[in-house]
């Protein structure tokens, strides 16, 4: 009995051994790329189709080729060779309004070609709304709502509190000083174009400054860096002088184009400072590396300097070299602060509501993160 059992075990082991030998001696079966899908690329203008596929489980595959057909026609190669790690291809060379289908060819070391199944036909269409920007859109609506609501509520309210901004309080002081000393005022608008919001904010401050210089008959010199800014500024200052009833005091040649080059502009402004020694210098707008070149020169001639910029990298230079500095948002608050117009002041209150909202979101996000809840972080990170 035992003898038969031993023979049976030996036979069983032999069969298993032979089976394993057979299985491991076989070449692994190489399959073509699977799960090949073609979809209209989301959130684009309808000019592309995205093709994706699964990686081929075979080391002998060295590259992929993509073939496309249009409206059921012949398949044509659209991409020479794609790296073996590539699993997504965005076809941006499609014909709009036509149906496109794709197949993927996997090329092996032996130049064997494994062809995938054909995808469904896809027509690319443009989207009217970018779904990846929905969070941004909602945030914009909330902020705009807060600002508009505040403007509406404050439209007849003369007693809107605005904290004291020393830089703007000093505007009258600077103009008065220049008048007493019988020297000019130099107003520099920075390097921003007319499309730059900081330049527009600077121009509104210039409008207020021009009204006062018209009253005091103090020369106002404005060297411009941008031709369009030059024309807008001339019109603005001229109207300010007209509004103050002093059109005779307006001198168009005092608002002039200096140059469009960054450092040539800085050199020109510095030269004016050294030669004319203005009593007050306003540096308001967008500035880059030239900020300190101008601010230090203004400091060296002893002019009272009021700077303001939204370029956060230039703020330390202005703080170090100028008497007063409008930091970031204070530049945008200037027109409301100087004019005391209730609707403009209302927009400042709306900004504060926006800040409170951001502050609450940050505190809430940090607190939830500490407890391992990260949906706020995920929501903010998903903005594209």
């Amino acid at each position: 009995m035992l003898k038969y059992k031993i023979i049976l075990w030996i036979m069983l082991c032999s069969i298993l051994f032979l089976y394993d030998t057979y299985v491991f001696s076989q070449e692994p079966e190489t399959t073509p790329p699977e799960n090949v899908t073609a979809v209209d690329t989301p959130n684009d203008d309808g000019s592309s189709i995205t093709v994706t596929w699964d990686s081929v489980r075979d080391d002998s595959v060295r590259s992929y080729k993509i073939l496309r057909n249009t409206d059921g026609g012949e398949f044509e190669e659209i991409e020479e060779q794609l790296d073996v790690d590539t699993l997504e291809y965005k076809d941006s060379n499609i014909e709009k309004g036509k149906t496109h289908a794709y197949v993927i060819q996997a090329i092996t070391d032996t130049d064997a070609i494994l062809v995938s199944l054909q995808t469904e036909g896809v027509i690319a269409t443009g989207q009217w709304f970018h779904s990846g920007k929905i969070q941004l859109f909602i945030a914009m609506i909330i902020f705009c709502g807060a600002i508009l609501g505040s403007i509406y509520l404050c439209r007849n309210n003369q007693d809107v509190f605005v904290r004291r901004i020393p830089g703007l309080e000093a505007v009258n002081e600077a103009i008065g000083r220049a008048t007493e000393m019988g020297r000019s005022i130099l107003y520099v608008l920075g390097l921003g174009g007319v499309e730059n919001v900081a330049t527009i904010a600077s121009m509104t401050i210039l409008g207020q400054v021009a009204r006062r210089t018209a009253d005091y008959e103090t020369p106002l010199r404005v060297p411009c860096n941008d031709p369009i800014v030059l024309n807008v500024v001339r019109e603005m200052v001229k109207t300010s002088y007209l509004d103050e009833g002093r059109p005779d005091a307006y001198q168009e040649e005092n608002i002039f184009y200096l140059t469009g080059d960054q450092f040539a502009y800085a050199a020109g402004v510095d030269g004016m400072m050294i030669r004319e020694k203005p009593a007050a210098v306003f540096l308001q707008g967008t500035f880059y590396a030239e900020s300190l070149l101008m601010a230090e020169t203004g400091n060296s001639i002893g002019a009272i300097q009021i700077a303001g910029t939204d370029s956060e990298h230039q703020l330390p230079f202005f703080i170090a070299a100028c008497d007063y500095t409008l930091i970031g948002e204070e530049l945008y608050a200037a027109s409301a602060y100087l004019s005391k117009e209730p609707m403009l002041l209302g927009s400042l209150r709306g900004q504060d509501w926006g800040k409170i909202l951001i502050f609450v979101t940050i505190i809430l996000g940090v607190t939830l993160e500490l407890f391992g809840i990260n949906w706020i972080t995920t929501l903010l990170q998903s903005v594209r």
Partner: protein
Amino acid sequence: MKRQIPLAFCFLFGIAMIFTQFSPHSYSQAVYKEVIDWGLIISPFAMVLAVVTLIQTHVTRINLRTEHWQYSLIVFVGMIVMVLIGVPFGPQNSIVEWLYNNVQVPMDASMFSLLAFFIASAAFRAFRARSFEAFLLLATAMIVMIGNVPVGDLVWNKVMSWMPWTDGASWLRQWILDVLNNAARRGIILGVSLGVISQSIRIILGIERSYLGGGD
């Protein structure tokens, strides 16, 4: 009408441009591109006026022999030479390129290099420890400056060898930049962004109209 039409255009284009930022559709992108192109078309006309202004300013100074009129002469001659060579032969002309590389570029570099000296003088004034805040600024600046040079870590490793970590100077510098400096910077950026939104709404709705001339 002189005010209403520009304000109406401002409102329409302002709203349209906001919409284009949220819509990838080809029609909306075509509108965006078209408006940008209009801006590019307007620029040369404004440039003509700017050049006329430049010529008027400097010719007047030369004619009246005002103080420092020689500088105006140099500007005028430089501009004429560049126009006479650049317009007929193009910007790739060898003389234009030579003038650009040997006059414009060195002068720009000279102005830029002045920045180092201006930073030194501004820093000297800013870092005078006249108050507690100024002292903090000075101390922070010293740490950042020491952390920026290789000798900083060398000194740290020698002097602060009893501390459990090495290269502390550069670590401290990086921490100040990444945490303290970044926090302040982001606060300013958030304020600026809200300010830009607020200013844009005021302009689009015509509440802020001083840029049209004549204040409110």
